[in-house]
Structures are given as C-alpha cells and as structure tokens.
C-alpha cells in the first residue's frame, strides 16, 4: 500500500497518446498484442517438453490448468483495479467470486446450459452484491475497511455453508444433476446436461501431435481466454482514463481531492463494484468450465490468494496481476505434484547416501510443502522487488539496454 508500488508503468502515459490501435497508445498496444499472442499460443508455450521425458513434469499446457491461469488472471486484474489504483485492500473478494459462481450455476440449472447467459448473470449479481458490500465497507478506510470486507466474505461463506443450503447446496455445493432440466435446453429425460456454447461443449479439445510433443487446444480454455483478453483490454482503458487517474488520486491524497471539489468515496465505490464484477466474471467462468461450486470458494484463504497474486506480480501495474496469478497457479499445480519418488529419479545419478540427503532437503520445497516455497518467493519479492515481478522484469530490461548503448536514457 505504499507509494512504491505505483511507480513505473502507470505514471507515464503523458507522452504516449498516439501511434497505437484500439484507442491505446503504441506502448499499451504492444503489451496487449504480446498478451494476446501468449494467450493464443499458450498450448505450445506451456508444453515445451516432449511427452515421456523427465521434464514433462513441468508441462502446464493441459486444459484444466490453462483455464485456471486465465480465470485467476481475470480475478487478479479486477482486484488490481481496486487495490492497485486506490490502495484500498479488500480482504473479501472471494465472496464476489463465489456469488458469481452460484449465480452462473443457477442460470445453468434453471434456464440454459449455454454458458454465455450464465456468465453475464454472474457478472451482474456479483456487481450488485459488491455495490452493497462496498457501500457499507467504504465508510471506513485502512485496516478497518479490510476487516469489514473480510467479515462480509466470511459471513457469506458461513451462510452458504449453513442457512442458505437450499440455495447453495451447503457443504456439498451445487452440481448439474440428471433431475435438472433447464427450460431453454432440451435434455433427454434422465441425462446429465453439459455446459456448452451454442451446442459446442466446454470439454471439446483438439489434440495435435508433433514428434514427441502433444499439444491440446481446448474450447473451454479459448472461451475463458477470450473473456480474459477483453477484461485485460478494459483494464488498460480504465488505467488510462480520467476515472483511473482519479482512482490513483484517491490513493495519493484524499484531502486534496475533497478540496478540489471531488468525492473520493464515490470513485472508490465504483472501483469496488467494477472489481467485484471482474470477480463475478471469474466465478462464472469457473462454473462454465467444471459445472460445480462449493462454499470453500468464498473462504478467506481464497481472498488472501488474490491479494498475494496481485502483490507478487506487481500491484498497480497492468500485467503484474496476470503474472502473479500465473506463477501461483503454476506452483500450486506443478510443484505440488513433485513427490519423493520423482526426486529420487532426478537425483539417481548421485551416490546413494548423498542422494537421500539431497532428496530429503529438496522435499522441503515441493509436494504438499509448495506453500513453503511460495512463502519464500513472496518474501523475497516483497523485500527486494516491492514492485513485484514486473519491477524485476523492468530492472533486467533497464540493465540490458544500458549495456547496449550508454547514451540511451534508462527505460521507464
């Protein structure tokens, strides 16, 4: 929440209003196109190792994980609009994710198994809920604001778990059952309907084998990715807009805003609602992908996760939250699968005694202990790179370009 986090990438739209596409500056257009290319080519980029090789363990190009990358990317992009710009740290954003999921689920159970109405419904319901929570929580700022949002999220979790069971399915959550018969979809009696986009099912995949490599192109992933690209594009527009500038003013000096004739609270409330809608979109997409939801999606650890994603990647930067979400989901899914057997295979070339010692040591960082590694990485980033991974990348580029030509001014 210090001013350090806003520095580089947001302060310099001053000289860049020309040369780009889609109403963006040329620098932002480049960023958008790079992200677009990476998202489209993700099945290749994330599967660099051939099947059956020892390193195939590190391949992340399977549909389930790729979907999670982009969905949590959306969640973090939205969170960053609130936290990165205004500095208001919400500790209850998972509530909007959960509410969005339940809303999408009911849309699928009752109306249609087409995912689009479900996702829109999720965004709207999450936005309304965020308006109510934000209106009350924004009566306070700082730690009290954070605690209020946390309290709301935990209340939502507790309600979903108990009193609201008819609506939420309680502990077991909601799934699509063979008794569900959405009025707009024709499901044959006794069959379980599947989420689809105008008939095409989310699970549809096309597999491409090139030599020993296997690449999977999954419809669900590309739908989620399309939403993510739109969400990312809108966030760039918001960052560069007068509204985005006002949000950074909120973080910088509310007193001056008041005496300049502006209402910082209203601006913050709108940022809160928008970021709640992003969370709702993420929640809706989760349901579209795996057609299930449980109350644990709203638990406080889920709210904490998006905070960590945003800070790890770089709060207040455009691409940071996406990087943060990607790194954490990668560690959660890849690091956690490495167990002692795998480690023994890797270090088999070492003498026996040494092999055992190395394996015991390495085991501290992998498997179920992946949280420990995450903790270390997070600490290192916060201490040495307060601007997150983005600041790390910027420092590397700056060093690189300085070496190339010493007359050039360092990169921003």
């Amino acid at each position, binding site marked *: 929440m210090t*001013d350090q986090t*806003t*520095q580089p990438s947001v*302060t*310099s*739209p*001053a*000289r*860049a*209003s020309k040369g780009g596409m889609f*109403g*963006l*500056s040329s620098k932002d257009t480049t960023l958008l196109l790079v992200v677009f290319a990476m998202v489209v080519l993700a099945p290749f980029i994330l599967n660099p190792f051939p099947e059956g090789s020892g390193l195939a363990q590190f391949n992340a190009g399977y549909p389930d994980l790729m979907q999670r990358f982009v969905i949590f990317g959306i969640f973090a992009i939205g969170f960053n609009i609130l936290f990165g710009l205004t500095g208001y740290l919400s500790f209850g954003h998972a509530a909007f994710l959960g509410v969005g999921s339940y809303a999408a689920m009911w849309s699928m159970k009752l109306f249609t198994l087409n995912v689009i109405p479900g996702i829109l419904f999720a965004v709207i319901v999450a936005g309304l809920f965020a308006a109510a929570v934000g209106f009350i929580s924004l009566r306070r700022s700082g730690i009290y604001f954070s605690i209020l949002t946390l309290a709301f999220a935990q209340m939502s979790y507790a309600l979903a778990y108990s009193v609201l069971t008819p609506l939420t399915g309680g502990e077991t959550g909601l799934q699509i059952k063979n008794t569900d018969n959405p009025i707009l979809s024709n499901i044959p009696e006794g069959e379980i309907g599947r989420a689809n986009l105008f008939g095409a099912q989310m699970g549809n995949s096309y597999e491409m084998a090139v030599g020993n490599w296997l690449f999977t192109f999954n419809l669900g992933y590309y739908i989620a990715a399309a939403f993510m690209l739109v969400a990312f594009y809108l966030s760039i*527009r*918001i960052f*560069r*807009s*007068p*509204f*985005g*500038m*006002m949000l*950074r*003013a909120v*973080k*910088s*000096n509310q*007193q*001056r*805003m*008041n*005496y*300049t*004739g*502006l*209402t910082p609270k*209203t*601006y913050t409330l*709108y940022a809160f609602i*928008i970021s709640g809608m992003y969370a709702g979109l993420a929640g809706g997409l989760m349901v579209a992908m795996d057609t299930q939801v449980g109350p644990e999606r709203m638990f406080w650890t889920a709210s904490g996760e998006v905070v960590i994603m945003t800070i790890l990647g770089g709060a207040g930067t455009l691409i940071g939250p996406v990087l943060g979400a990607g790194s954490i989901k990668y560690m959660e899914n890849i690091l956690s699968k490495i167990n002692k057997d795998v480690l023994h295979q890797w270090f088999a070339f070492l003498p026996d005694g040494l092999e055992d010692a190395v394996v015991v040591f390495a085991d501290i960082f992998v498997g179920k202990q992946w949280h420990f590694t995450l903790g270390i990485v997070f600490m290192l980033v916060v201490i040495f790179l307060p601007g997150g991974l983005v600041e790390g990348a910027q420092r590397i580029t700056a060093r690189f370009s300085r070496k190339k030509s010493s007359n050039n001014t360092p990169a921003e």
Partner: protein
Amino acid sequence: MTSILSVKGVNKRFGGLQALGDVNLDVAENSCHAIIGPNGAGKSTLLNVLVGKLIPDSGSVVFDGQSVLGRQPHEINQMGISRVFQTPEIFADLSVMENMLIPCFAKRDGAFKMKAIGAVFGEKDMVQKAKEMLSEVGMLEKRDMIASSMSRGDKRRLEMAMCLVQDPRLLLLDEPTAGMARADTENTIELLKTIRKERGITMAIIEHDMNVVFSLAERITVLAQGTPLVEDIPDNIKGHPKVREAYLGEAQV
C-alpha cells in the same frame, strides 16, 4: 465594493475554550484580505469554518449569496472557493501534469463523473488548459516529474496552480510561506502578487509573517482570542496601539 464572503456573528466553542467569539468579517470582491493574529487567536478555526471542515455553533457564513454552512468541502470548492494549505497538499505520487489535470476535470465534470474508457490525454482541451497554467507559473518543463520529487517551493507553486486552474472566485491561503526559506518566501510573494494583478482573484490570507502580509494585503483584520480586534488598511494597522498590545502582550507571556 461588494463583499463576496461575509461572516456574521460566528461563534465556536471547544469545550471550555471560546475559539471564535462573535466574528464579523467581510471580504470585498477583487481584493486581498489578510487575517493576522498571535498564536491561538482562532485563525485556523475560522479558516476551517470557511471551508466546511468545522460547523460553527452560531452565526452565518455567506459566499456569493449562498450559505456555506453544513456543506461538504467538495461542495464548497464547487461553489468557487479553493484552498491552499499550510503544508502543500498535492498528489505526491502522480506526475505534475496529472496534478494539474485533476482540478481541470473536477471543474468541468463536477464532483463525480464516470469516464472510464476514453484516455486522459485524449482530452485535448483539458491538457491545453493544464499546460497553459503550468507555463504561467513557470513549471511547464517539469510536467513529467513525479510531484513528490520536487522542492518544497515547487510543490507550493504547483498547489497554487492547481487551485488557480479552477478559476476560483475566492482563494484561501493558509500561511502560504510557513516553513519556507527566505528565497522561496520571496518567490511566493512575487507569484501571489502576479496572480493578484493579472487575474484579479479575490484572496483571503491567513499569515504569521508580517513581511508577507504587508506586501500583499489591501485590508487586514487582526484577530485576538477569537475576536476581531481591528480591521483597516495596512498602513493604519502597522502602528495601531491595540495590535501592538495583542502582539507584545503575547511576547511578554
């Protein structure tokens, strides 16, 4: 001369302390009115009443025919009163240009407007207006700097430019040279004189430094223990026995 700001019979108590007692004050349009007084005379309390931060126990404050009592600071700003603080209040993490653009948007779009899609720098009129103001105060070449990295004098200059770009009807200045080095103080006085001469903006200054007061003010009110002691033109204030008493009295204690 018509008065733009008129304070009548304002009282404010904090517990047992009478901070303001029956304050009457008129600021004439297109003038520079200074409010001086020893420490604890109630200058800051009066200023806070004027900007809506404090509500007096009784009395009225009328600006341009409308009461300001009970209004929020942002509403009072929208009525046309801008305030310069004792320590410059600027958007320290933002660039100088953005610091200028925010008041421009506030003036044009009001207290809140959802403009989340178009780019800030696509608003050519606003950018033009901000640039003109910056060059008027001689800071145009610093427009890409982050505001926090500037000197104290420049921050003060920026804050004034932020107020002026809104074309206020009344500019309130709270000890604009407090804690400044000699050179910065001189610069600030010059800047204020220029603004006063070229823009004809009505100013009310609360000030400790007599040098500043006598080189700027056209009319002076001396406040002591929450009550106006004298109000007159600077030349008559200088040797006024009551004023000497108030200041010397303080010195003897």
